[in-house]
């Protein structure tokens, strides 16, 4: 029973990280129909910025966390306006290719600026555990889950209760009509990228203590985020979070309890399960299947 709760908390913690990155992907996809392959590297790059702000130190500084969120937001919006917007007129494939170019550039740039050497990134939470009835609950896992969920909640409140949030939702749902109502579509896209970048930064800063800071640290997380986004349905923000959490728990439970699943098969098995889910629900758990009348 102890291992069950331990595995569950680790699963929820991992899952929250996948979910927040998945949410970033969904935000951009909903607005532009483009999958931002650079999402992981943007998260990694902003995490390096946080590390630089903290003076490469050993203690986490909350001011640097919030400053990085701001920098990520501005950076994300800027990237959308400068790099992506000129190519939006071209095909989806070209836009996707642009995000891939961005991925490559950010990865190389991080290695160039900060060297590829593995670095320590501090966690805001202590590495000890609470012991409740014999069960070890890692403070770091619980804290990570809390921080990510808090950010997601704040974002949800923003979308739900502010005029700008409403405008963004409208713009994503029906760009034509929104434009007719006076909503500036292009700025909305920039904002969408900004929020996505900020979410990615949260994801990166929360995961860096466990995977250690290197230019390639987000690659695995990105794969899981893709899986989570698909699992939840690419058009559903709720789905992204739900997908992330379920995936995190599923992966950890699989690794713990199902022994033929050796570590090198963990990811392919998880992807296999994902594909099976998609066969049953092709638009993901929360996605809406667009009924096409032929």
């Amino acid at each position, binding site marked *: 029973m102890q291992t069950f709760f331990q595995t569950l908390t680790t699963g929820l913690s991992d899952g929250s990280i996948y979910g927040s990155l998945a949410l970033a992907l969904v935000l951009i996809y909903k607005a532009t129909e483009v999958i931002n392959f650079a999402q992981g590297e943007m998260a990694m790059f902003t995490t390096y910025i946080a590390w630089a702000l903290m003076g490469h130190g*050993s203690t986490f500084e909350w001011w640097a966390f919030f400053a990085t969120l701001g920098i990520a937001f501005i950076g994300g919006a800027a990237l959308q306006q400068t790099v992506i917007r000129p190519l939006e007129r071209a095909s989806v494939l070209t836009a996707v290719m642009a995000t891939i170019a961005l991925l490559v550039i950010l*990865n*190389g740039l991080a*290695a160039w600026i900060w*060297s*590829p*050497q*593995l*670095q*320590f990134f*501090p966690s805001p939470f202590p*590495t*000890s*555990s609470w012991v409740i009835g014999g069960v*070890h609950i*890692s403070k*770091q896992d619980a804290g990570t889950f809390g921080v990510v969920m808090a950010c997601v909640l704040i974002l949800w409140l923003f979308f739900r209760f502010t005029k700008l949030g409403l405008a963004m939702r409208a713009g994503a749902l029906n760009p034509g009509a929104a434009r007719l109502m006076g909503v500036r579509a292009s700025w909305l896209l920039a904002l969408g990228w900004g929020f996505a970048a900020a979410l990615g930064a949260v994801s990166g800063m929360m995961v860096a*203590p*466990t995977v*250690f800071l*290197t*230019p*390639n640290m987000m*690659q*695995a997380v990105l*794969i*899981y985020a893709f899986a989570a986004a698909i699992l939840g349905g690419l058009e559903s923000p709720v789905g992204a979070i739900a997908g992330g959490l379920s995936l995190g728990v599923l992966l950890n439970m699989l*690794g*713990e309890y199902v022994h033929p699943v*050796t*570590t*090198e098969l*963990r*990811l392919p098995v998880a992807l296999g399960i994902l594909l099976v889910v998609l066969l049953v629900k092709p638009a993901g758990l929360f996605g809406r299947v667009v009924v096409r009348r032929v």
Partner: protein
Amino acid sequence: MRKTFLLIVAALAVTAVVGATAGARPTATPGVTAKSILLEGTYPLSGPASGYAPIPVGMGAYFSYVNAKGGVNGRKINWHYEDDGYNPANTVQITHKFVEQDHAFALVGGLGTEPQLAVRQYLNDNKVPQLFVATGATTFDRDYAQYPWTIGWQPDYEAEGSIYGKYVVANMPNAKIGVLYQNDSYGNDYMRGFKAGLRSHQSQIITAQPYDLSATTPPAVQMAKIKASGADTLVLFATPTPTIQAYVIGTKLGYKPANVITNSVSATDAFLTIAEKSGSNIVEGSLSVEYTLDPANPIYNKLPGMKLYRSIMAKYAPKANANDGLNLYGVAKAWNVVQLLSKLGKNPTRAGLMAAARKMTFAPGKKNANPFLLQGVSTFTKGSFQYPITQVKLVKYVNHVFQPQGKLIAGRGALR
């Protein structure tokens, strides 16, 4: 139709421009001109293995130092290296370029077991020296008869593993050992040596957990199994990232082995400090081995080798982190290369280079030992003994630094 035509013509034009870049004009001995010798190597400057990027930087610094003093026998060393991203397919193409276009004199210090395995046959077939590969995979030293143009340099993993095995037998004959090893030639070489060193005590290994190096999964399941087995001695034959993860996961699981042995590649102050900061409390007291000077440990600062190293780094690679042992590894290897080149005299040949590499004696006894290696370590090859460096010292991680313990250990027996 016109479009297709245009495309073809344009493609041809591109090809012509691209292809027209002339290669180096071949000289009598490839790579050797009146004023220079061309040495080239492939290194992972991007991708997951790019942490090793300081090695060629250190090598370049030493070569610059030598060039500033006039070079070797009147020739400057021209050191050039390129990124293969640890993808053997890239290594093959770049190596072809080095041999067929640049006409390098020798390929030096190529990094990575698999990348170098991919080009070994090609280099041997073309009689190009594959000198001092940067990997401890035993095959590069052991199989000299089949691959006469290939030689390693650092203590090989099998020898290192056997040192740990013998240490266990001598010092902890009743220890219960749990091993975490990478499931490839790296980890398997270590395991093979470890078991050989344990000899009749192999039953002390009560569990051996392989894991696959992958970005997506830390070795958590394996660590749990090692803890569950009740092993009081943890042995880590893993590359740096999984090693650090193992330390951290171990503590998370509440595992506290009495002893931890870590392979030398992962046992650097930098990596173990990260493990400690990440919450591991089983790092102190970790044992490993060392054969080069450690720039992160101040006890070596007074040694002439360390002083020379620091001055070279300050002058020729000022932006590099001189406390990173990988730079020193590069400098130490470059020293060796220069020693060989100077022996070749006015007319170096590739065959001459390999002959010199196969008959090296750089020993304290002869007062010509490599100053960047630990005192007492010889670089020695002769006849059927083609393992250049086999002596190491045991080190113990105390107060964030690896402190040497005891005397030199000969990983492959006494040197005759």
